């Protein structure tokens, strides 16, 4: 992938080639943090629910979910099936839209705060 930006040393515009290996290297740290937090949440979850999660798997949404190889990586770390949701980018917006339709029911469950 070609990236345009400013050279840190020379201070002039420059175009560099960034390989997928380099990107993977740079992202390994944040991905590790996500995996760590994920395991932590699972540890704190009541065993009834975590066994459901192990059975049903984990769903990834959002733009970051589209990162190639992320689901396999998380799968390897957690040993739980991981899948990326269809239209991962729009999930949150679609979800709020659907939530509007069931606003009353959701409000009762306390997931919505209003002033």
């Amino acid at each position, binding site marked *: 992938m070609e*990236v345009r930006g400013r050279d840190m040393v020379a201070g002039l515009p420059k175009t560099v080639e960034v390989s997928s290996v380099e990107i993977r290297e740079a992202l390994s*740290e944040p991905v590790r943090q996500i995996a760590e937090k994920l395991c932590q949440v699972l540890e704190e979850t009541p065993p009834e629910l975590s066994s459901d*999660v192990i059975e049903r798997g984990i769903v990834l949404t959002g733009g970051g979910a589209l990162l190639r190889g992320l689901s396999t990586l998380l799968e390897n770390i957690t040993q739980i099936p991981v899948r990326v949701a269809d239209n991962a980018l729009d999930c949150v917006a679609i*979800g*709020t839209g659907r*939530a509007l339709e069931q606003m009353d029911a959701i409000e009762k469950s306390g997931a919505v*705060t209003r002033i």
Partner: protein
Amino acid sequence: MRLVPQIGIDLGTANILVFRRGKGIVLNEPTVVAINTKTKRVLAVGNDAREMLGRTPGNITAIRPMRDGVIAEYTVTEKMLEYIRKKTVPGPGFVKPVALICVPSGVTNVERRAVLKAAHAAGFQRASTIEEPMAAAIGAGLPISTAGGNMVVDIGGGTTDIAVISLGGIVKSASLRIGGTRWMRRSFAISGMYTIWGLGNRQPRN
């Protein structure tokens, strides 16, 4: 037909998506606002404003008003929400829509209140917030209202939300302030570049 338009807003760090009830997604644009610093008028929002990032003269600033999933620039966010309201619900100003806005699961009450206040000031009749992993789970079509554990990991532009949901509520959740924008910056920093055009990581001029 409903008299009061209802819209759902995914107020993200990188992109803002608006879902209008009965119509689907009606707006999907980058969260960037260009403002004239002298007159305080909004010049552009979204795609047009993104073009201006890093290309502005002294009297204009183009900024990303959201950082790490929460409001970083209050007045700008308010103006942006107003623009969104006018764009997605055109028509006379007295028709005030109802909004449901997403916030990351780890936000403080102050941050949540800021979102609600901004929406109110932007001309929404009523505003509520919903936690992002909850919305993501509904959007992904998970059976959240049943008695069973569902786990979602939502990796957005500014935050990553992890949650276990059962019976329509969040049982356990965690929010990390890492997301796409920072990943990009990291990956380019190693290539020896510090300003990537289009990311707008320059500090806004005051």
